[in-house]
């Protein structure tokens, strides 16, 4: 009887062990690009188009060019549901498979992963989200947030408002309302907003929206109605965006004085307010529409062949293109890494160097099949991991987004000192924060 028990035990242990090792087995002849996406949960309406854009562009590279530098990309989605817990779980599950780069697509998850990046040697590309201070490459060699930080975005919005009011000096005495998702994401810009308010003499009213009331927001907009701020700025995400746009139009707030950050400017966000949302403004840094050769290639090689999950009418909408933009950066970083190391199959450490040497000029955008898709991304260096590039303002005309401004450059002189301070504070608080030891490569 004892023998039987032992045999049973060994059999069970064996089963578990095979299961563990089966999951570890991984072909080493492709480039592994994990995508942290969320097609479920309360933020899925923002997450799905981005996930589709990222997935489809990389799939297109596989189909059209056979990957990058002749090596197939192994694209794998990990569902986070915008939940920090699951994001960390995704990180743990991908880290043993030599990932090239991680795109968390959530500020909350990014904040958790930043300390892990340098330990596990996996770069994080938090494209225009996450920790603004991570732009300081000296302290955060493994984190990248091109093309601009939240603080850059806010300074662009204030600049735009100033322009409309007839000069930044005219902002004196005006009131700017700030409605934001009450989480790390929405709170990130507040220090700069307060700083700018002091510098230009405008008043700030804060309207926090907790995650659980983002589909309601009636009390916040009641306060807006009472306070009548001259301009409203929004840092919203997921279901918060369409709700806010709808509430603003219901409350008769002038829509052309309501500006969202680039994460509040998807087609679905504005469509939530219907025709009444006409005039709503939002920042954007990726191209509108499908009129680019590379986007047409995605259609030809991926969408028409049924390899995409995108719905036909949502193809190449604002956030889809944002996802594409994100993976263009990933692909360029992988190309750079291949050139720098001479290896074909690159891993996280190589791609970190590739990201640091990211340099996409107007000509390069054209070469990639994206003429005029986005502004040049030329500001990234070892010291500056964001680039502080400009973005343009887009306006909802009732059916679609229309570009209404040229690139607005951020107020770098205001943002830079705050960034340095914030990075220093972060490093001081985190005892034992590793000093940068990574060498700096020449820009390519």
């Amino acid at each position: 009887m004892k023998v039987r028990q032992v045999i049973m035990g060994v059999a069970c242990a064996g089963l578990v062990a095979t299961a563990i090792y089966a999951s570890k087995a991984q072909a080493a002849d492709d480039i592994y690009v994990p995508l942290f996406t969320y097609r479920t949960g309360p933020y899925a309406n923002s997450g799905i188009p981005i996930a589709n854009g990222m997935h489809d562009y990389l799939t297109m590279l596989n189909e059209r060019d056979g990957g990058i530098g002749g090596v197939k990309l192994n694209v794998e989605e990990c569902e986070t549901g915008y939940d920090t817990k699951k994001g960390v779980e995704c990180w743990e599950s991908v880290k043993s498979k030599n990932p090239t780069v991680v795109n968390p697509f959530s500020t909350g998850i990014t904040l958790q992963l930043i300390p892990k990046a340098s330990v596990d040697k996996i770069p994080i590309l938090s494209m225009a989200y996450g920790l603004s201070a991570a732009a300081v490459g000296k302290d955060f060699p493994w984190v990248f947030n091109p093309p601009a930080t939240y603080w850059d975005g806010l300074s662009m919005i204030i600049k735009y408002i100033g322009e409309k009011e007839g000069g930044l000096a005219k902002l004196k005495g005006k009131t700017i309302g700030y409605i934001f998702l009450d989480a790390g994401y929405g709170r990130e810009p507040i220090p700069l907003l307060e700083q700018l308010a002091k510098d230009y003499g405008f008043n700030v009213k804060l309207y926090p929206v907790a995650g659980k009331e983002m589909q309601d927001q009636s009390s916040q907009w009641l306060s807006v109605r009472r306070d009548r701020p001259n301009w409203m700025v929004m840092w919203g995400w997921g279901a918060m965006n369409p709700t806010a746009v709808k509430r603003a139009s219901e409350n008769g707030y002038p829509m052309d004085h309501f500006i969202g950050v680039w994460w509040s400017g998807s087609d679905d966000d504005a469509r939530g307010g219907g025709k009444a949302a006409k005039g709503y403004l939002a920042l954007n840094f990726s191209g509108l529409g499908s009129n680019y050769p590379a986007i047409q290639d995605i259609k030809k090689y991926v969408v028409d062949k049924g390899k995409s999950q995108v719905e036909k009418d949502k193809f190449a909408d604002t956030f889809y293109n944002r996802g594409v933009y994100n993976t263009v950066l990933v692909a360029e970083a992988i190309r750079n890494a291949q050139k720098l190391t001479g290896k074909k199959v690159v891993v996280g450490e190589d791609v970190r160097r590739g990201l640091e040497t990211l340099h996409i000029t107007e000509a390069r955008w054209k070469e990639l099949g994206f003429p005029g898709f986005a502004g040049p991304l030329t500001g990234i260096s070892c010291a500056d991991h964001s680039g502080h590039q400009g973005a343009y303002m887009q306006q909802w005309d009732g059916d679609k987004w229309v570009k209404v401004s040229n690139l607005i450059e951020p107020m770098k002189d205001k943002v830079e000192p705050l960034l340095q301070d914030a990075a220093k504070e972060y490093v001081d608080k985190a005892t034992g924060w590793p000093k940068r030891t990574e060498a700096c490569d020449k820009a390519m």
Partner: protein
Amino acid sequence: MFYREAGQFKTSYASDQAIFPILQDRIGIAVILVAAFSLPLYANDFILNAVMIPFLIFALASIGLNLLTGYTGQLSLGTGAFMGVGAYACYKLTSIWPDVNIIVWVICSGFFAAGVGAIFGLPSLRIKGFYLAIATLAAQFFLEWCFIRIAWLYNYNISGAIEVPQRTVLGVIVTGPRATSETRYIVVLAIVVAMTWIASNLMHGRIGRTWMAVRDMDIAAELMGIRLLPTKLMAFAVSSFYCGVAGALMVFLWYGGAEPAVFNINQSFTILFMIIIGGLGSLLGAYLGAALIYILPIVLRFVPEWLGIPIHAATVEHITFMIVGVLIVFFLIVEPAGLARLWSIGKQKLRVWPFPY
């Protein structure tokens, strides 16, 4: 077959009253403990970091809630918030006195949670059942509001999140990103095992008996000379202590940082579901419930990959939701008293097998 007790005689009262009177159970526990402590030798980072550490922490929080809801009969929806109190207390303590051993602070943070828990337990003398659940709901909302609004709690961090600093114990890095998963796992395991053992002793002693008397009928308990207020408040305090330690462990040894949203009402519900499915009033149930609710979805997520079926990550997620939901309904229909009861019935069957009566 497995539970043949022939030849096991109880020769003293002590052996008759033992928590594990059957030899096989004692061997089983010993094997599980040895396996658990030697797990770092053969498991990879993913198993330790994403499966075992969270499982143990959830099990500890479930034990905490079980002491209150399962053993004392006081329904509480404030578990998430009490965990948050522990986490924020630990964060503040270690930022004010960074040189003190972090494990000491993790345990100490439990006392802060216990104090807060006792205050929010005060209404339990007057109100019962669902009404008490609503009163504890107030604790949940109030404390969550504090975590968001009181900037002092998160050291005026811009993002409003707390980040765990690096701390060492006896020269070994225990918290922060550079702590190895093995170290963190062993620390969590040691604390959880020790606290389970204490809880078990508590339950088999005078205090546990008074709690159960209150649960079964508080008027009768009062007539027997049990003072309700101290008993109930003690249950709230001890329960919150466990939750607080679980919360501190969660942030310091698992997440490595946290936003207030981590301690929201969903967290409370998750823990409540764990003890309902695992079995109210059972320490084993806390473990089984945590395993079913937390580990099962992770395992399910890997099943298609092992079988080589190509489906999208999001589809897997949806299917996982459905399967877990169905399983919960199934288990509750088969055994409404929870998995722990299912196990004890199974054990009873095994003991008399192959001669059922």
